[in-house]
């Protein structure tokens, strides 16, 4: 059932996400062939599109889908499907991570394409295609994903909280956004306080100490992300199971 839900969630905006990813690649490919005068004017705009407008569009799409699909009219279908609320939520989280990774990869490729005259891109690709490098890249991707997860769940939790205010939706929206911001701030503060400070000590100079410190920080960081994700997921799930109030 989870796979079926994910297919449904993926289909809602695959055209928009694929178009945005393709747009990034096309811009990245086209830039070196542009006239210098156009470039002077165009590059800041292109970078603004790539790193501001597209991420904002992606976030808006994900939020709108979550809100409409669960707490709008479509909720009357989604909550009457014979699936558990955890599966409904998990499907949304996994598909959001899929879109995030697609856009992240597109952005990285975009940067490589922009800088392709600075270094031999094929040589770089060949160098990256070693098992050791790929393993490290996957590890970095995992760390990025696990750090993004609490943000996604905090946003979803804020939207779910909004639905609880049945008598005053505007007030509910205010409390939902406030709770989301507090949750995100708490997560960031905890991460910086408990894991981040160790990164700041990397000025010591002793490689062994640096490695040990970073490894410890990473484990703490993963533990914090996992703990916050579990709390936010649990609260979301509680609202959907015990406090659901569809309009």
């Amino acid at each position: 059932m989870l796979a079926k839900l994910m297919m449904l969630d993926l289909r809602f905006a695959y055209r928009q996400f694929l178009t945005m990813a393709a747009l990034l690649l096309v811009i990245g490919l086209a830039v070196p062939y542009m006239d210098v005068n156009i470039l002077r004017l165009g590059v800041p705009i292109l970078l603004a599109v790539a790193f501001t407008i597209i991420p904002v569009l992606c976030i808006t799409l994900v939020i709108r889908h979550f809100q409409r699909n669960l707490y709008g009219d479509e909720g009357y279908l989604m909550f009457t499907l014979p699936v558990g609320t955890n599966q409904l939520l998990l499907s949304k989280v996994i598909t959001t991570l899929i879109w995030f990774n697609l856009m992240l990869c597109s952005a990285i490729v975009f940067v490589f394409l922009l800088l392709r005259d600075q270094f031999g891109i094929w040589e770089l690709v060949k160098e990256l295609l070693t098992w050791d490098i790929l393993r490290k890249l996957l590890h970095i991707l995992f760390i990025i994903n696990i750090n993004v997860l609490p943000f996604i769940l905090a946003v979803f939790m804020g939207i779910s909280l909004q639905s609880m205010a049945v008598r005053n939706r505007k007030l509910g929206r205010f409390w939902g956004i406030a709770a989301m911001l507090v949750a995100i701030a708490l997560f960031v503060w905890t991460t910086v306080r408990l894991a981040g400070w160790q990164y700041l000590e990397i000025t010591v100079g002793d490689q062994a100490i640096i490695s040990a410190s970073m490894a410890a920080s990473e484990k703490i960081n993963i533990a914090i992300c996992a703990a916050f994700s579990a709390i936010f997921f649990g609260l979301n799930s509680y609202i959907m199971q015990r406090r659901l109030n569809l309009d």
Partner: protein
Amino acid sequence: MSEVLLEIKNVTKRYGKQVALQNVSFDVAPGRIVGLLGPNGSGKTTLIKIINNLLADYEGEVYLCGHAPGVETKKLVSYLPDKMALPTWLAVTEALNLYANFFADFDRARAENLLHSLKVPPGKKIGELSKGMQEKLMLTLTMARRAKLYVLDEPIAGVDPAARDLIISTIIDNFADGSSLLISTHIISDVEAVFDDVIFLKEGAVDLQGEAEALRSQHGKSIDQLFREVYRC
């Protein structure tokens, strides 16, 4: 009534200080067509949402075939909401696929026949259909399931009088043998002939309930006349 399909016991629902349902209790036996009657704001939709697990925060007990509302009951209830619940970016045939994927009791051949008889164009996107066509599609998907209980929320409210008969006959001809039908409506005259039992809701409480025929002979009035009398302003 030897067995009970749907059991509602002392259900109360509050929205803040406002009471939407107050101590509502009734049973629905298998094979019965039950009219849930009441004017707008009487609590019909709230009760239907509770049966379908769309409202979780209530007092009292609800059981369907012995299960409290949840994943198990969703397999047994076919629900027609009073809103367009399907994603409008889906095509009609994709909506059929969606129901076939999620509901084991969905009869695709029956759905296709219903689409044909109700003249719903299968190739179009739902968002491109008129409101009337969208309602017919929702009705098709609901009635093409072989469910234990069909819950229809105001199925004829937005339909013109000419199409009402078609909607009602589609409902009556297609609900599975041995299953029950709970129809909420405030338009009684067109549907009263099909009711086995009726429940009158007034200001969130059950005002009158019983077998439709017994109520008719007891009061010497049709259900429609009785409704007008109960809800006279």
